């Protein structure tokens, strides 16, 4: 019985390792995931295969660092359709998204 409780607890903890590190709550992670798929997806494709914006699949991003990607996310790219998200996302949240993109976003 006790073992099961422990198992459940460790599952809960390991389900959101990034949350623990960055102080992003599980609920906020859900929101970010939804934003990534739905709203970033409106330009990059729901499956990140590209649209008005380029594909953001792990293969397409190979060699690019999470730091670089989160800078693009926060500040956008002037002169292109990529908007700056710093009004809506914190640095930690942009970083979380960058890491999700590098891992591959699944619905």
């Amino acid at each position, binding site marked *: 019985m006790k073992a099961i409780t422990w198992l459940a607890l460790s599952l809960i903890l390991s389900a959101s390792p990034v949350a623990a590190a960055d102080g992003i709550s599980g609920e906020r992670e859900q929101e970010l995931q*939804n934003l990534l798929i739905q709203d970033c997806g*409106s*330009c990059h*494709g*729901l499956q990140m295969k590209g649209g008005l914006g380029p594909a953001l699949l792990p293969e397409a991003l190979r060699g690019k660092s999470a730091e670089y990607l989160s800078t693009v996310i926060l500040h956008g790219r002037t002169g292109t*359709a990529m908007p700056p998200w710093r009004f809506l996302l914190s640095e930690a949240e942009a970083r979380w998204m960058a890491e999700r993109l590098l891992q591959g976003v699944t619905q």
Partner: protein
Amino acid sequence: MIRVIASLAFLLLINTPAMARGTGDLGLFIERASSSVQIVETSSNTSIGSVAGLGDLSHASVVYSRDQRYAYIFGRDGGLTKVDILKAEISQRKLQSGNSIGGAISQDGRLVAVSNYKPGGVKVFDADTLELVADIPATFGDNNQRSKVIGLVDAPEGKFVFALWDAGEIWVLDMSQRDRPVIEKFKNIGRNPYDALITGDGRYYIAGLFGEDGMAMLDLWNPSAGVKRILPDYGKGEQKLPVFKMPHLEGWAVAGDLAFVPAIGAHEVLVINMRDWQEAGRIKVHGQPIFVMARPDGRQVWVNFAIPNNDTIQVIDTQTLAVIKQLKPGKGVLHMEFEPRGEEVWLSVRDENRVEVYDTRSFERRNTIPATKPSGIFFTARAHRIGL
């Protein structure tokens, strides 16, 4: 004789009872996360069926056959699906490119054109068989680069019109002789046209520009006059706000001589006087407008917004140019579609997983339909309108 009766009986059998109804009060909405559509009826404000297996439907759009029975659904993954809305089933499906963005049906209903991002261009298919009729690569520049194509619409006299995002061009494709496509190109229309529309009479094609101020207008009755810039001073010298979602120009909102379009990079709806194409006003609104759609009688204009204001709808009175109503249907209001005569409007509320029907006079909610991440809503009345 017996054979005739037998086949008649057979015909009756397969044609009843499911077929014994019209389709003028039907439509569908896209459920983009589940690759499906729900078929809806506007007389009862209910969902009457659903069709799955339609691929990646982000940004999907729909046109209807002239008999209003078949919906052609253009998916992001390049899928072109013909859905029989009476039988609620797929009648044909084709993967036509890597990445598509929209489509149009020809004036005579015999051709369906699809615009593609990748590889950039337009493909034209037979509306019956979905066989390829013409492949028009959107090449530009010295190295034959391919441009993403946006703003594809049908126009009178068997034409399609579209714009090239990367090239800054408008092309008129004459498909009146299907085995001999003729293309007329208009270059240097402005940087990054992001969407376009055609007026309800099929005369003016207007592309919104993301990379420059103003809009590019082509008078299809006088193409030799070339493309003109309208509202050239709009937004000049002003700090642009970030655009978290590209506005849509599909809902050409016209009331009398006035047209209403979303500004880009400003929280405003622009009013254009169509007599002289001058700016006739700017209406401050709640966020970056996405769809600016007129009720079919033109008395109201309904506006939805980009994130983070996409929980709100504002209604503008076209006589006073004032915002007369603000609604908060819920998070992620993505699209709206008026019933053919405008007494009710349907809204998709993506993040709340529902579609809602509102009375446009009392602004009361009439019904709510559960849905999975709903986006575009399309009623069959579009079948008989130019540019939709």
